[in-house]
């Protein structure tokens, strides 16, 4: 029969076990989730790399084409513009942080609570809140690092759409503040993924079941992304005001309105003012082609009005604020993630069964 050796002298003033011991534990328990994330990101990276090279090549060809506007060059522009159907608006990649958060973050505590293994884990010598922190932090770091690497690829991929100076060519172009793309690039993408993991961890601790916790993570994350894009992001820095009629396509235009003599004019008032002028300036063209002339006509109308005492105001965020905005978003998401993890740890510590 196997017997036990006698325990060494009991030490009541125990020093906590070293944190590094959690690394191997975390790896053994979450390797499938982590390998899943790396595989998913790796496969997408290969795809983005192949498509991205074509995209960059098409862009370079369209820009270099001479003389611009010739049918041959127009073909190249059309080729570039036609390439973006799948990825350009970013909506598919928006799901990535949510999925990573849901499938990596949510099960960390929910699975323990659902299967009852927390009764094993929380009664080991490591201590339960240290155990939870020792798991969440390495997972968060690995996921953030992986998505940060992926983010540099995404940033490169989308570059052609943000290049300025070639507006006249008619190339597909968008503002770097574009709601669907801003959070897929640079600092924002890993920060959002980190936040998703933290949301998942807290949801798992609160809900205590894996599948409902995953669902809750997806819902809460989507709500947060939506609210940030619609309400929050534009307020990071006070918008600039201008009375210029044209702004570079890279600027993020928030709102526009007319004033006369210091009084803001309503939409309907302006319509009444503008309609006769538009009709006067409108060239005589067949009815079915009128839309081709509308934009220049409106621009002319605006010029006419500004020469007659009206002022056209635009509040906007200039493209020079892209990096400050990235860091602000990354900063508050990091702070939010820290808070969520702290709340999770606090719950682990005080949870009374």
């Amino acid at each position, binding site marked *: *029969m*196997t*017997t*036990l*050796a*006698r*325990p*060494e002298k*009991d030490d*009541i003033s*125990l020093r*906590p*076990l070293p944190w590094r*011991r*959690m690394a*191997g*534990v975390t790896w*053994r*328990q979450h390797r*499938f989730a982590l390998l899943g994330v790396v595989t998913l990101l790796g496969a997408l990276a290969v795809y983005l790399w192949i498509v991205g090279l074509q995209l960059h090549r098409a862009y370079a060809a369209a820009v270099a084409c001479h003389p611009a506007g010739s049918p041959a060059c127009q073909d190249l522009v059309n080729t570039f513009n036609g390439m973006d159907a799948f990825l350009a608006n970013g909506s598919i990649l928006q799901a990535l942080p949510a999925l990573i958060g849901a499938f990596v973050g949510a099960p960390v505590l929910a699975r323990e609570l659902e*299967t*009852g*293994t*927390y*009764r*094993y*884990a*929380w*009664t*080991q*010598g*490591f*201590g339960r809140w240290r*155990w939870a922190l020792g798991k969440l932090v390495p997972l968060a770091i690995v996921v953030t690092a992986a998505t940060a690497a992926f983010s540099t690829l995404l940033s490169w991929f989308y570059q052609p759409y943000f290049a300025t100076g070639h507006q006249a060519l008619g190339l597909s172009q968008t503002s770097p503040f574009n709601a669907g793309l801003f959070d897929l690039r640079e600092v924002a993408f890993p920060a959002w993924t980190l936040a998703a993991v933290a949301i998942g961890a807290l949801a798992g601790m609160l809900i205590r079941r894996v599948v409902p916790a995953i669902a809750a993570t997806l819902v809460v994350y989507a709500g947060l992304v939506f609210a940030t894009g619609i309400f929050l992001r534009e307020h990071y820095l006070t918008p600039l005001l201008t009375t210029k009629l044209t702004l570079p396509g890279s600027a993020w235009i928030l709102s526009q309105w007319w004033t006369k003599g210091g009084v803001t004019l309503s939409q309907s008032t302006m319509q009444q003012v503008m309609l006769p002028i538009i009709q006067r300036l409108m060239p005589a063209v067949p009815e079915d082609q009128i839309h081709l002339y509308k934009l220049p006509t409106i621009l002319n109308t605006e010029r006419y009005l500004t020469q007659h005492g009206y002022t056209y105001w635009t509040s906007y965020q200039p493209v020079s604020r892209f990096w400050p905005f990235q860091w602000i978003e990354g900063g508050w998401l990091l702070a939010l993630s820290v808070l969520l993890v702290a709340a999770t740890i606090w719950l682990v510590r*005080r949870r*009374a*069964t």
Partner: protein
Amino acid sequence: MNVIETNGLGKRYGGTWALHECTLAIPDGCVAALVGPNGAGKSTLLNLAVGLSAPSAGDVTVLGGRPAGSPAALDGIAFVAQDTPLYKTLSVADMLYVTRSLNRRFDQSYAQARLDELGIPPKRRAGKLSGGQQAQLALTLALARRPRLLVLDEPVAMLDPVARHDFMATVMTAMAADGVSVLLSSHVLSELERVAGYLILLSRGRVQLAGEVDALLASHRLLTGPAAEVDRYAGRPVVHAGRAEAQAHLLVQATADDPVPPGWTARAASLEELALAYLREPGAVALHGPGRDQGTVKSEVTK
């Protein structure tokens, strides 16, 4: 030293007390059996003792005054929870690795030798083991931590008779070899009769009976006599009176030296008879414990 001491310990879920006014002192160096029907509060008491849950009232310390759940307490107690939770997707070897990483002490060679003896392959996933093997693995992991107190919550409830025997044999071997104290709960008393040195009987969230098994057995007698004379028995306090046709059985708080009325016979009660008598009379209480008056009868039942 007492391995567990509770003082007015209580745990409330919503409006009901799962454990109420529990004051205990479980001594070192024995197998303490925590028995009681399902829902009596056994798991609640064990969860409080290992620090998984926090008391609603009173306090609990372990291993000579360490607060339950504190690092020093976790270090000295190994807990095998009900249904022996393991990470089902991890291999046996990985379970050993995880447990070794999470604890100050881990006797790897003991654990490996035990698993060899049990024929549990290290590469098998924990979820693929039989119920008995899972229980043995959980127990081996707990013992390899070389704890001073081993706490087992319903360890044999799900096991077949052979696995039950093997499991208890492992516990008793470790106890003999290492002097580890054991606290285990069960709703089947017959399992524990041979091994228990200390008995705690819980009923409806209250401690009904607590004390050294020898002292409890020595202070109770089972009297048998004519059923018609039950009401006239006026000797020692009666815990429970059971009638079978013309005969009646009285479990009384008495020693072998107490006089037996004419027409009655007296014998020692078994632990199971003792526990059953108390369980049938929830108002009866007997607490024998170190540091307490021997044989205090807090209330008695004579019907």
